[in-house]
């Protein structure tokens, strides 16, 4: 297996700083309501690049490509299947451009396909695997350091995703679940099941991202840490979304509070920390200051 920068940095033992949210940040920068954030890779690449740069500047060691919803399935639903290759290629190029600053790595983001896999849904497991393989192939070919299968909720889909990624590339893989029913995913997956299934399949790290509140995510983190020696990826939301009187959204956890909490994440054994929905560059800076100050 080729030398991996990501595995080397992980093995060095120091916690690494991830990035923050894509969608909620682009929206405050003018992404029209109802437009998926992935569309801006081709429609407003400057804004995507600027957000990546803000995270790098705030202290990220690893940023994710804006490709969460750029599977063929997702793009196809939006009638944009023909963008598949171009948007994934360009998304990696934009992240790479921002990461030029010495040592910042790029992770290829792979989100759920948005259709349920058999037997509960109608998508065949083999087809799900092929969809992940196709997108992972593009991300790997264009130069990411690691593939991140994130916001998963179903063991069957996540396993198909991992097989697909493995088919496409030898790069290290992180698998991260969203525990949005508290300490279970919407399909009922428990932290212990994620750990058991994916530690046996040899992932570089298991993860927790999105979910519900910071507190509930923290409980999952403690549970996962107690069950495995694998590195743990931790990207909680900046609390829950609240609405301003004008109808716009903000998240309940301020940058200062997020930074404070990051201290406990590290103490609880998280190795890769950042934030999901609502995590602005200011939030990320607060997290980075805590991590780098260790």
């Amino acid at each position, binding site marked *: 297996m080729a030398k991996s920068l990501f595995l080397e940095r992980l093995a060095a033992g120091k916690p690494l700083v991830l990035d923050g949210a894509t969608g*909620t940040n682009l929206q405050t920068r003018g992404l029209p309501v*109802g437009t*998926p954030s992935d569309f801006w890779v081709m429609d407003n690449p400057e804004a995507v690049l600027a957000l990546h740069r803000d995270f790098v500047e705030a202290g990220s060691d690893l940023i994710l490509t804006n490709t969460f919803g750029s599977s063929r399935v997702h793009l196809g*639903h939006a009638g944009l299947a023909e963008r598949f290759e171009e948007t994934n290629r360009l998304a990696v190029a934009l992240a790479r451009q921002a990461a030029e600053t010495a040592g910042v790595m790029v992770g290829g983001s792979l989100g759920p396909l948005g259709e349920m896999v058999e037997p509960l849904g109608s998508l065949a497991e083999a087809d799900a695997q092929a969809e992940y393989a196709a997108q992972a192939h593009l991300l790997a070919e264009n130069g990411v350091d690691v593939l991140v299968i994130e916001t998963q909720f179903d063991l069957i889909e996540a396993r198909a995703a991992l097989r697909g990624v493995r088919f496409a590339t030898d790069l290290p893989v992180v698998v991260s679940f969203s525990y949005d029913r508290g300490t279970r995913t919407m*399909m009922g997956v428990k932290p212990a099941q994620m750990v058991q299934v994916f530690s046996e399949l040899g992932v570089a790290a298991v993860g927790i991202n999105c979910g519900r509140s910071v507190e509930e995510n923290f409980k999952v983190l403690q549970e996962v840490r107690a069950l495995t020696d694998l590195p743990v990826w931790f990207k909680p939301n900046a609390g829950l979304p609240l*609405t301003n009187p004008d*109808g716009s959204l903000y998240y309940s956890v301020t940058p200062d509070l997020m930074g404070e909490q990051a201290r406990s994440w590290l103490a609880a054994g998280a190795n890769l920390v950042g934030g999901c*929905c609502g995590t602005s560059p200011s939030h990320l800076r607060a997290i980075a200051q805590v991590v780098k100050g260790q």
Partner: protein
Amino acid sequence: MEERIKAIFDCVVNGDNKGIQAEVETALAEGVNPSAILNEGLIAGMGEVGRLFEEGEFFVPEMLIAARAMKSAMAILKPHLGSGEVGAAGKVIIGTVKGDLHDIGKNLVGLMLEGAGFQVVDLGSDVPAEKFVAATQEHAPNVVAMSALLTTTMVNMKSTVAALEEAGLRDKVKIMIGGAPVTDAYASQIGADGYAADASRAVALAKSLTA
């Protein structure tokens, strides 16, 4: 009779698709009242599924298999029911708002509403405000239910409420919303009549709005 209905209720809760078909056939052959099968077996069974979901005992898979069992039982039962009995709880138009392609949550709410005896008109996902308006004119529902999974699309709930208002339909329907980023506060802010945190609570809300 009690025993037959209890068996059907249990088949719904356990998502026993094969068992429920046999149980309903047997019950009908034995002359059990079809309305009792519907209300005390199927609808009550789905109510129990919802309760177990709220309690954190059941998750999405259990709900889906229960709804599947309910549907196959309904296919057998329907010819035996009076015309007004199916969907007697009221009519609901449901859809995921414009720009949002996520339909898993919306589908679950639709299934649970059907399970509770509502007639459901599903507009699918990425539904523009005009389509909600047109469907409301066409179907004259009691409730319009909107879903959004993304913080970036939930704002389209507001524009849909406004479009219904503009079309002069706002007073004729109740509007309920749901989805991961949506809150009670957001519902009142945009002038919806209610918010539900999950598919089971959506049923309770629809019932209270149509009561």
